[in-house]
């Protein structure tokens, strides 16, 4: 039983790493991606190929997977963001990119195509995940509270005004994309060494959707929100034994409901803090905004 709980937490933490990156990209910088699962896949395959075929050290392979994700993110971002595409054109471009990655993974000899890569060593365990997610959350938090993070937030809030505040819109967006792609790459590498088997069909729109839903539900402009939302999204369906299909129905519906009724999500521009929790227990009539 305990093993099972640890398993769910482990899976949750893998996604927390990816979602934290996406939170910076969508939640803080305001860009929409339909293909982040592709960076996840790139990280997974890079790390797996290195340990499986070339006998690399697990941690170095993880680093390589992270770097691969980041580099590809940078490469994709450079032309598409430079063109200052509208948000929806950009999202469609990421969709196209995701497709391209999928086709690539299914057709390159080294990835063994649609059959996938079995037999990857299971080096990912709970302590590793706890450390990795702590590092990623800490780094993301530092980023957000620095001038680089504020630039991203300004871009999200009003990019016209941001430009008039001296913010380099292109670099700000590219930074966020690269960071989120690197996080997804790291999560992918950890994923591969957790399940010990990967194939292209695992990295689909389902994964991208779940990550986006967690960011939106958790609250754009927050890091703790998406973290909590991710753990809920992984934990509750597991607990209730809900089939994948109905999860997606729920995610889809949730996205619409949140947009219509509570666009700020769970945390909405704020972080989980003692003040906030105290606020929930404050007696009504004592003032303070909800």
């Amino acid at each position, binding site marked *: 039983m305990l093993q099972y709980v640890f398993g769910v937490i482990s899976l949750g933490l893998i996604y927390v790493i990816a979602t934290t990156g996406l939170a910076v990209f*969508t939640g803080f910088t*305001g*860009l*929409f991606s*339909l293909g982040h699962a592709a960076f996840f896949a790139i990280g997974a395959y890079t790390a797996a190929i290195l340990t499986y075929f070339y006998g690399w050290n697990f941690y170095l392979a993880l680093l390589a997977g992270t770097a691969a994700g980041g580099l590809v993110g940078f490469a994709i971002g450079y*032309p*598409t963001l430079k*063109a200052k*595409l*509208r*948000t*929806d*054109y950009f*999202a*469609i*471009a990421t*969709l*196209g*990119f995701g*497709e*391209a990655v999928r*086709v690539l993974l299914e*057709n390159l000899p080294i990835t063994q195509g649609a059959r996938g890569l079995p037999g990857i060593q299971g080096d990912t365990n709970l302590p590793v995940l706890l450390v990795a997610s702590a590092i990623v959350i800490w780094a993301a938090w530092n980023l957000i509270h620095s001038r680089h993070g504020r630039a991203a937030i300004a871009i999200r809030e*009003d*990019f*016209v005004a941001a430009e008039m505040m001296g913010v380099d819109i292109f670099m700000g967006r590219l930074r966020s994309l690269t960071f989120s792609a690197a996080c997804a790459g790291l999560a992918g590498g950890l994923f591969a060494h957790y399940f010990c088997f990967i194939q292209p069909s695992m990295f689909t*729109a389902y994964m991208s*959707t779940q990550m*986006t*839903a967690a960011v*939106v539900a958790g609250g754009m402009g927050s890091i703790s929100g998406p973290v909590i939302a991710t753990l809920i999204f992984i934990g509750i369906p597991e607990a209730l034994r809900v*089939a994948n*299909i*109905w999860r*997606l*129905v729920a*995610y*889809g*519906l*949730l*996205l*619409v409901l*949140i*947009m*219509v009724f509570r*666009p700020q999500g769970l945390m909405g521009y704020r972080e989980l803090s003692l003040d906030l929790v105290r606020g929930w227990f404050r007696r009504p009539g004592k003032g303070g905004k909800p």
Partner: protein
Amino acid sequence: MFVQTLLTGLAIGGIYALMAVGYSLVFSILNFSNFAYGSIIMLGSYIAYFAMVRLGAPMWAALILSILGAALLCFLNERLAYSSLRRRRASSLFFMISAMGTAIFLENLVYALIGAHFYSFPEVFARTNISYHGVAIGVLDVFAIVFSSVTIYALHTFLQKSRTGIAIRAASYDIQVCSLNGVNNNALIGLVFALAGALAGVSGTFLGMKYLVYPTMGWITNKAYIAAVIGGLGSLPGAVVGGILLGVLETFVSAYVSSVVRDVFSFSLLVLLLLVMPTGLFGRYLEEKV
């Protein structure tokens, strides 16, 4: 072989054109890419299928049911998922998330309730090909080309000649001025979505008849985006040209290179266009709403 490929390309091009027009119609009014459009097309297809198979309806009745059903669904989609965002003047990111949520919800709902089974339409047109000078074309394809052309012409006449049509065209230039001139914007937008839905019904039915009916067939709207971008987003004639062009080009790639490459080709074309010529052939580059 050349003429053969061309004719096949025209047939699928006609369907793409219908989808692209529906998509551009909404875009031209609201400056918004409706990512949920694909799922409406998919639902239109299912409605036609079940009308024919469960209700035993003849093809023309199934088509009408599909048109009405899809129009209603598209209209509801707008009212439920987008109208409150519109009133709140939410940023385009929120619209995209809501659209994506709708798409995922509908797709997976169908998946969960009806199943992933690929349905194929009963034979409406006998598999006879019309042969002429050594070139064969399926009766279905001929019908598709003819019907698409008729539909597009009807839409064109409506937009040019009727009062409502003129109001729609005016709204595509400046929706605010429209309401100042006494047009009920809310009703107009609802009508536009219903029209787009009607087009979705037609294209969905033909797609289903030509290929198969399955829950994720909505992703074919990616082709609609590409077609609309080629022609120039916001331009209806552009959408028609773009659709036909894409259909023909794609079919040639599929026939002369390989069918695997076909989708990668289309997406690469899209990304290239977005970078190099985002206004497409006839479009205006509308400023994103901030």
